[in-house]
């Protein structure tokens, strides 16, 4: 017997996995950052389904807001495209 909320949890976290993989493969660092914030939105949904609202509040604000801004500031001090391979 599979319960509905567990099914939704599996779907949401799989989407998060896909987006984190895409973020790793992306050479444009700004695009990778956008992909990683989509991934953290999915993981935040997962935490909400797991009934952890405390984590959701901190995770969304940090992962989508503060972390993204800090990395954008760091990218603005270096280069936007990853080179090599």
């Amino acid at each position, binding site marked *: 017997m599979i319960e509905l909320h567990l099914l939704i949890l599996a779907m949401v976290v799989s989407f998060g996995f896909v987006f984190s993989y895409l973020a790793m*493969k992306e050479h444009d660092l700004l695009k990778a950052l956008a992909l990683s914030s989509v991934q953290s939105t999915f993981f935040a949904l997962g935490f909400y389904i797991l009934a952890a609202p405390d984590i959701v*509040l*901190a995770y969304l604000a940090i992962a989508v807001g503060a972390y993204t801004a800090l990395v954008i*500031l760091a990218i603005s001090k270096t280069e936007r495209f990853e080179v090599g391979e």
Partner: protein
Amino acid sequence: MTLKRDTAVALSFLLAFLVLSYAVVENDVMGLSKNPLRPLGEFYLSHAFAPGEMTSHSPEVVTAIVWNYRGFDTLFETFVFFLAIMGTLSILRLSGGQEDMVRDMERVEPHRHMDLIVQVITRLVLLMIVGISASIALHGHLTPGGGFQGGSAMAVASLLLFAVFSKFTLERRGLTLRHTLGAYAVGISIILLTVYAPLVLGGHFLQINLLPGELGLFDLDVGEYLAVSFGFLSVFLILGVSEWIFRRVLRGELR
């Protein structure tokens, strides 16, 4: 060729995840379903709001654990954050003369002017975010949330200010590094005072349930709220100096 390999890698990750979750949920590999409530969890649930020696005066068990039963964890996390901010400050510090040079160069730097619509909407949204973050933080001992969560929401509000109005506008209105660091210090001192107060009342360090009512948890939430929001804002103010200005000042080209 590489696309095929990428797809294979991604699909195998997904497959591994699905097999693992199926094993945990359906076949009970880790034995989670046999033991729905462990003794430690039972202790927290039955003592957090009940009167007695072990109480935290809080119906919100997560906050009770975070600031009372596992208070040292959170206290040391606060100090890790403190060290991170001090590290940023000491790596990117400028002398008094250099700060004046940065201010002069930022004055002549061309500023982006956002649309009037964007500015007005941002002001409205900003009010809402500040209200919500305050309610998350000040209600932290009653409803889900707490100082760290509220503080990080507040950090997002300050980021919006950064994006729509420039850093220079903020500093002209009085939100300088000196002021944000002052507010950060106030937050840290509220936390330290609350943590040391039980020693005066004859208890142990961090035994905040000796304080009247939920005052201990409330004070710690307020202190953490101030510390996190203004700590993040100071880091943004330091990192927000344009790179070409920073380089020119460090090389001493302007004189």
